[in-house]
C-alpha cells in the first residue's frame, strides 16, 4: 500500500488558503498539497501520495545511506551505519 513517489517542487502557490505546489516527476508535473510541509521549498524533493506531500527527501541522509550500500563488500569489517535520529 502507500504508493508514494518522490518529485521535485518547481512552484509553490496558494489555492484558497491551502499551500500547494507543482511537483515534477521526471517531466510530468502534478499538483500536490504541501500544507503540512511548511519548510519545503522550490527545488526540494517531496514524497507524494494521493496528491498529498508526506515528507521532504533529505538529500544528505539519502547520500549517506546509499554511499554505504555501494561500498558493501569492500570493507573488511561489517559496519552498521550510525543512526542519525
Amino acid at each position, binding site marked *: *500500500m*502507500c*504508493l*508514494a*513517489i*518522490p518529485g*521535485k517542487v518547481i512552484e509553490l502557490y496558494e489555492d*484558497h*488558503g*491551502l499551500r500547494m505546489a507543482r511537483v515534477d*516527476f*521526471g517531466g510530468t508535473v502534478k499538483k500536490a*498539497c504541501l*500544507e*503540512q*510541509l*511548511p519548510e519545503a521549498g522550490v527545488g526540494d*524533493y517531496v*514524497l507524494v*501520495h*494521493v*496528491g*498529498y506531500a*508526506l*515528507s*521532504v*527527501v*533529505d*538529500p544528505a*541522509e*539519502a547520500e549517506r*545511506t*546509499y554511499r554505504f*550500500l*555501494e561500498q*558493501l*563488500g569492500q570493507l573488511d569489517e*561489517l559496519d*552498521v551505519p550510525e*543512526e*542519525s*535520529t
Partner: protein
Amino acid sequence: MKYLDEYRDGQVAAKIRAEIERTVTRPWTLMEICGGQTHSIVKHGVDRMLPPSVELVHGPGCPVCVTPLEQIDKAHAIARQPNVTFTSFGDMLRVPGSHTDLLRLKSQGADVRIVYAPLDAVRLAQEHPGREVVFFAIGFETTAPANALAVTRAAALGVKNFSMLVSHVLVPPAIAAVLEAPGNRVQGFLGPGHVCTVVGYRDYERLADRYRVPIVITGFEPVDILDGVLRTVRLLESGKVGVENQYSRVVSREGNPAAQRLVASAFEVCDRKWRGIGTIPRSGLRLRPEHEGYDAERRFAVDTLETAEPSVCISGEILRGLKKPHDCPAFGEACTPAHPLGATMVSAEGACAAYFAYGRRRTQEMSR
C-alpha cells in the same frame, strides 16, 4: 528519476544480496507489513534474490484487502442511490462485497468515479451542487492526512453535498495481532515506510520492546527492501531487538507532527473489523463527533445490512503470514483476479493477487 532509479540499480542490489548471504547462518522468517512492499518484492523479483534460508511472508498491510465486508456493502448500497456520485480510489473498484462490486454497479448505471486525490472528490462536490458526492476514505496512516484534509477542507469551504464513508485501519495493532496469534512464525519485520513518514516510529519501538522483535522501517524500492532485509537479518543474527530506520531519507522518529495534528482534528481511534482477520480493538479511525455531518454512514442510513460471510478461503491465514497463496486449494483455480474469492486476491497488491499476476503459481523455482 531521482530518488527512484538508483534504488533499482542492479549492481547495488547484487552487493546487498551478497552481503545477506554472507550474514545468514540459519533460517529466518521475516514479514513485510506493507502491501506496497509486497507488490514491489514480487514485481522486481526480490524474494527470488534472497538465499533460501530467508523467508519473506506477506502481512496484512493492504488496506484494500482488509476493508471489512460491512463497509464494502455500505459503499455499494450508497453507490446504488440515484442522486449519489460515488468516488473512490481505483483500488476499490473491483473489490467484491456480499453481492456485487463497484464496477458492476457502474455497468448497471451507478455514477461511480475514480479519483486520484481525496480533494478531487471535494472539488467534484463543488462543481456538481445537485449531486450527493460520497468519498470512500480507506487506507492506513499514510492516507489519513489526505483524507482528513478532504473533510476539514469541505467544512472550511462550506461544501454541504459532500460526505465520506470511512474505513481507515492502523498498522501497529495488526502487527500485535500477528505476533500474538498461536503458530506465529514471524521473527522480524520490515516496517511500513510511508506510514512512518506520517506517524514516526515510536509506536514501533514499543512493539519491538514488548514482543522482543527487530523491526526495520523500510522503503519500497528493491534496494530499500534488500537493505531492510539485510539489517533485519543482522539484528536477528546478533540477537538484538528494537527498531532501525532504513528509510531515513524520508522517515524520522517523530514523523510529521503537523500531519498528525491534522489527522487528530478529523479522526479518532475506534475498533475495526479486518476482513480475513476479525475485529482488532482500537485498530481503526472514524470521523470525530464534530464532523458527523460529513459521515456518509449517517447521511445514508446504511447500518442495517445483511452481510454474507461463508469461509472458503484462507485469506486470514495468509494475512497473518501462516500460509502462502499457493497453499490454498482455490488459488489460481476457483479464485483468480478475474473472480476473486477473498481479501488477498481482490487487491492488486494483496499477496494472492501479487503472486498470481507475477506468476507464482507453482511452488518449485523457475529454472530460467
